[in-house]
């Protein structure tokens, strides 16, 4: 019989064998610590995500002015 898990370690084996609620609770502890330590809730930069760019600041207009749009122009 082959070895099923290629980089088997006790930590993963223990994690796999927990009940879903136990994993959830462990994950919540990490979450609480993360928030208390001032961790950011902003999206992680991920260049492979199809919507990574939507969180980026919009590019400045070419003339450097605020994003005014011309909606009507006089004849002059």
């Amino acid at each position: 019989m082959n070895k099923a898990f290629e980089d088997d370690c006790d930590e993963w084996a223990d994690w796999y064998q927990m009940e879903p609620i136990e994993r959830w609770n462990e994950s919540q502890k990490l979450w609480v610590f993360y928030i208390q330590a001032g961790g950011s809730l902003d999206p992680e930069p991920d260049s492979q995500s199809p919507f990574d760019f939507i969180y980026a600041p919009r590019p400045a207009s070419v003339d450097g002015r605020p994003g005014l749009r011309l909606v009507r122009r006089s004849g002059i």
Partner: protein
Amino acid sequence: MGGQACVLYGAAEFSRDTDIVLMTGAENLRRLSSALDALDARRIAVPPLSPEYLQKGHAIHFRCHQPDAKGMRVDVMSVMRGVAPFEELWPRRTTVELGPDTSCEVISLPDLVQAKKTQRDKDWPMIRRLVEANYAQHAASPTSQHVAFWLREARTVGLLLNVAEAFPELVPAVEALRPLLCFARVGQEARLAEALEQEEKREREIDRVYWAPLRQELEELRRR
């Protein structure tokens, strides 16, 4: 259906948002809007919340401002590439009790694995862990459904060889859907490793192609 679902099924992901899959429909959207209002959630990016964008496969992104959930992000989707429509996802979901009065409906493991087949590096080790966790939990007395799932979705040579060796009678049926199992069946490790790599590469390319027009649409919406 995102990082929290991965944790519940046995992978490990530290997710900074909550991903929700929603059936589009007037009543559901009304209920979603009401829940988002209770969280004082405001949209933080394009596109706007509408059945049209959800049906096209876009995600709608929100950030909560209600004090108990301040800063938390919620992403809502209705359609995911390669994943069955909501009407099929719902009956096969898992209900998880998180407390005496709290339960949540979680996308099924096979559907979650399907949703994770994206162009992103980080999703592929997640699939591996999800399948391994399921194997670790059920290897002692698996059903034929478990075995078929492992044969369909396992991402490592070791696990595939192991399952193919233990359940040779179940391999041919799945091999029709996943031809690389022919290498697992005869123990060709190097060929199997190469085929797994190619399979991932193909799937990632399909995802890139799928997202190209959606990405373009997002860029246009962002320019408006």
